[in-house]
């Protein structure tokens, strides 16, 4: 079943990095975003240092991490629809490759790129992370990978329903980006009106944000079993749906 997986994954990474916009969009932009936002907030004289500190410490890295996840999902949707439209998926199926292997390779590529972007962000923005903060980077990376992995399954559902590659990016963005607004990223969900609070509980991004914020601030994993369970559930549901409706051509 794994025959060809690593070679296909490696080739997909190389092909992705050769795409001029692909690499810039999903790796360079989040890193720049992190640095620019951290500097901006750090330089605001009007903001009390405690609040500025909290934003830089938690809000900015979590926001950028969510952007990393969502752009990985969008990029997956686009690539899958282009591959379907141009017959690449069909050509790969006319080999002993298992269909699951082809899709797994794309998930692995996105997870590797997510981890790489996060590492770059941490390296490039090291001085904006306060020295005494003790951010559990390994746990945070794992949390981000869990969130991305779960969200990529939404990507496959979206890739199954977009009619053509041209619509992949806009449809994906319309489905994914509005979730940012009420996911607890900018405003704690408890401050939202009750009706909207109900909605946030249904939107999967809320669990990603809650997990990332908690882990970044040093929560134990045991405090976020609910978030992880929700994300695993999301993966199972979306994978089941896309197994039924996924089109290869």
């Amino acid at each position, binding site marked *: 079943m794994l*025959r*060809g997986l690593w*070679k*296909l994954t490696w*080739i*997909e990474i*190389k*092909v992705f990095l*050769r*795409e001029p916009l692909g690499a810039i969009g999903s790796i360079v932009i989040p890193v720049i975003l992190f640095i620019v936002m951290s500097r901006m907030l750090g330089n605001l004289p009007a903001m009390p240092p405690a609040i500025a500190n909290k934003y830089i410490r938690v809000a900015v890295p979590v926001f950028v991490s969510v952007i990393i996840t969502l752009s990985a999902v969008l990029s997956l949707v686009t690539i899958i629809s282009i*591959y379907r439209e*141009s*017959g*690449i998926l*069909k*050509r790969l*199926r*006319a*080999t*002993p*490759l*298992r269909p699951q292997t082809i899709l797994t390779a794309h998930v692995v590529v996105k997870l590797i790129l997510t981890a790489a972007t996060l590492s770059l962000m941490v390296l490039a923005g090291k001085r904006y992370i306060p020295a005494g903060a003790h951010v559990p980077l390994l746990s945070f990376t794992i949390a981000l990978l869990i969130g991305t992995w779960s969200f990529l399954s939404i990507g496959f559902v979206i890739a199954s329903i977009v009619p053509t590659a041209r619509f992949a990016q806009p449809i994906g963005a319309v489905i994914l980006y509005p979730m940012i607004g009420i996911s607890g990223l900018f405003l704690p969900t408890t401050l939202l009106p009750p009706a909207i609070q109900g909605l946030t509980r249904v939107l999967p991004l809320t669990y990603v944000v809650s997990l990332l914020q908690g882990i970044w601030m040093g929560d134990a994993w045991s405090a976020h079993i609910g978030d992880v369970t929700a994300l695993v559930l999301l993966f199972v549901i979306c994978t089941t749906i896309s197994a039924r409706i996924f089109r290869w051509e």
Partner: protein
Amino acid sequence: MNTPVIEVSRIRKTYGKTVAVDEVSFSVNEGEIFGLIGPNGAGKTTTMECIEGIRKPDGGTISVLGLDPFRQAYQLQERIGVQLQQAQLQKRIKVWEAVDLWASLYRKKAVTAEHLLEQLGLTDKRNAWFMNLSGGQKQRLFIALALINDPEVVFLDELTTGLDPQARRAIWELVRGIRGRGKTVFLTTHLMEEAERLCDRVAIIEHGRILDIGTPARLVDRYCPERTVVLTTEDLTADEWFRSMTGVEAVTRTGNQFTIRGLGEDLVTEVIQCLSENRIKVAEFRTILPNLEDVFLKLTGQAIRE
């Protein structure tokens, strides 16, 4: 030589109300180049993709190398090579990477990638991106991918569509080479010239139905037995001699040019005999022989659309 490697029996495939393949049956023998020929939309690709196991027919049975292409898909893929119509690869995959990836997908490691690239004239292009290859180079790469596992049966779908005549001829040579190594080739084409030059046997398909199967020569004899000889001579007595020949149906004359029409492959020989027996001096002599294009016209009442 006459063992069937592909046996198709009464397969059927519909898309909504459209019947794409309608009770199609045929068999392909070991070591031959078999062509499924017909216009675009006749059901060629659907039929081929059912045999390759990437599409499931609604009814009928298929056996390839003794395997069921749908239930034993992975076993079958190990032993066949496939080139799909209008397939693409990743735009920025390099030629050697594609060949290397494909080589890693099969258990059997019989062909070396470098040797294959050399054979197909792609060695210079091994570091080129797929998107920068010409149409002919892309097709040669797809042939390389189809041959990487040293397959027993090779499927080629509209292999030379969109290529210039020179590239087309080069690809035909390659396909003959595949047969030369003992492989069976199953191809589709809407180019009658391609079918005539390349195929040992052809099946003519139209609207999802097989109209007839045979060698190109036999199909031409069966449906278009008429032969035509055009010659020019100063000898005006010739007219009489031609008309008295057996098998001649019509003789027309424009100035010094005679057009003799008749049935059967003996016509040409008889005309030559008649010329020499009667010592008729000829300045120009040519024959017009019907081809698969004419067979198709006869069978369907319409010319094949390019």
